[in-house]
């Protein structure tokens, strides 16, 4: 192996890949949310946003393939780490209490991650791999959120995403080696604020659509 794959292959190397791909996803979530806020304005704003996005042409294709690549790295590495960590303690404690370090987010990373993966597949089936002839994306969105089941799934998924990111964002900085008494409290706070914005910003879309349309 060469120096590059060797460096990424160790425990810290794998963590580095998790952190970089995870941070890229956080950036994606932020832009995705900014775009989706047009849904709160109405059909015209949303459709013109969608049109602008698609007018980017090859750039959008590039972004899609990049996201897919990042997702494959994040999921494959995440599952590998999960398996290795599960194997690293063959005999479990009969009594185990936290000393106060863990959070709901940090405890559940692999589980929220797997749920997110399932959700992302469903989400793409709902809005990406659909026949758009004779209709438009606004209609597809409003039709989907006509169903109580979808509203429920989407809200739960956004809570799951918020929980994942509440640990993930801070954790990625720590993994990258950014930890200092001066700014770590800020980064930890930012993770919580960011996850609340993601959870509320996305989570209210289905409710808003089902009430207003």
């Amino acid at each position, binding site marked *: 192996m060469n120096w590059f794959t060797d460096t990424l292959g160790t425990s810290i190397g794998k963590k580095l890949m998790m952190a970089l791909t995870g941070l890229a996803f956080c950036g994606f979530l932020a832009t995705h949310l900014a775009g989706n806020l047009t849904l709160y304005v109405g059909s015209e704003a949303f459709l013109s946003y969608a049109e602008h996005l698609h007018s980017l042409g090859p750039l959008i294709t590039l972004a899609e393939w990049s996201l897919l690549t990042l997702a494959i790295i994040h999921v494959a590495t995440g599952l590998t780490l999960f398996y290795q960590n599960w194997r690293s303690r063959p005999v479990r404690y009969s009594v185990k209490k936290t000393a106060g370090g863990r959070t709901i987010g940090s*405890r559940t990373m692999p589980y929220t991650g797997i749920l997110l993966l399932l959700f992302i597949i469903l989400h793409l089936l709902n809005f990406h791999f659909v026949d758009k002839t004779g209709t438009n994306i606004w209609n597809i969105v409003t039709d989907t959120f006509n169903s109580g089941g979808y509203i429920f799934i989407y809200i739960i998924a956004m809570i799951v995403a918020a929980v994942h990111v509440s640990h993930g964002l801070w954790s990625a900085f*720590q993994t990258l080696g950014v*930890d200092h008494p001066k700014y770590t409290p800020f980064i930890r706070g930012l993770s919580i604020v960011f996850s609340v914005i993601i959870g509320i910003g996305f989570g209210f879309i289905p409710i808003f659509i089902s009430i207003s349309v």
Partner: protein
Amino acid sequence: MTKTINLTLKVWRQKNAGDKGKFETCQARNISTDMSFLEMLDVVNEGLTVDGKEPIAFDHDCREGICGMCGTVVNGRAHGPEKGTTLCQLHMRHFDDGDTIAIEPWRARAFKVLKDLVVDRSALDGIIQAGGYISVNAGGAQDANNLPVPQDKADKAMDAAQCIGCGACVASCPNASAMLFAGAKISHLALLPQGRPEAAKRAWAMVKAMDALGFGNCTNERECEAECPKEISIVNIARMNREYYKAGFFSGEKN
């Protein structure tokens, strides 16, 4: 008048490394609250010996919180419920009369249970052997200020050097990762001028060794720094990560 308490212990008993092991219940009677946890175990062991039973094997040496030999998981907490305390410095006044206490050995794939509460922590030595040293003779004491060390660096190195290698970080980590230990050892040397020349080689070799010895991967759960009897901070893990990236991406270091 010293206060005494009676306790029920649920202790892990295992004859040897090959034995399956199981929990056994025994009583600890008339325990003075001035005793340390290990002294309480001594009293229980005396009783067991008198009854012709095998005493509970546990590791210990200095009994003053500096050697790093002692340590078990007490009611789900490494070194018991007190912050910044080794098991030998945990006093029985922190327990109430009638309490039931579960006592288990450190659990990790990299730490084999040898007998009862005694585990083989030589995997930590393996990490040190991979590079936790400087390979030139330090020589005699130099004149003061020949090698200037800024005070904050000296303080940080000293904080990292407080690690006594007890293994509580591994035991309390949900992933049985040794990154706080490795981070402290790598930081301690990387912060000082004598350690700099081999910093890249050391970071690389120690991380590789840590992985090969079967420890888990850090997921930044922060349980280790909360349980560390020397309260070593995870800023040392971040520093190890930086040293590792420098070694992997920017140094001439070949694995």
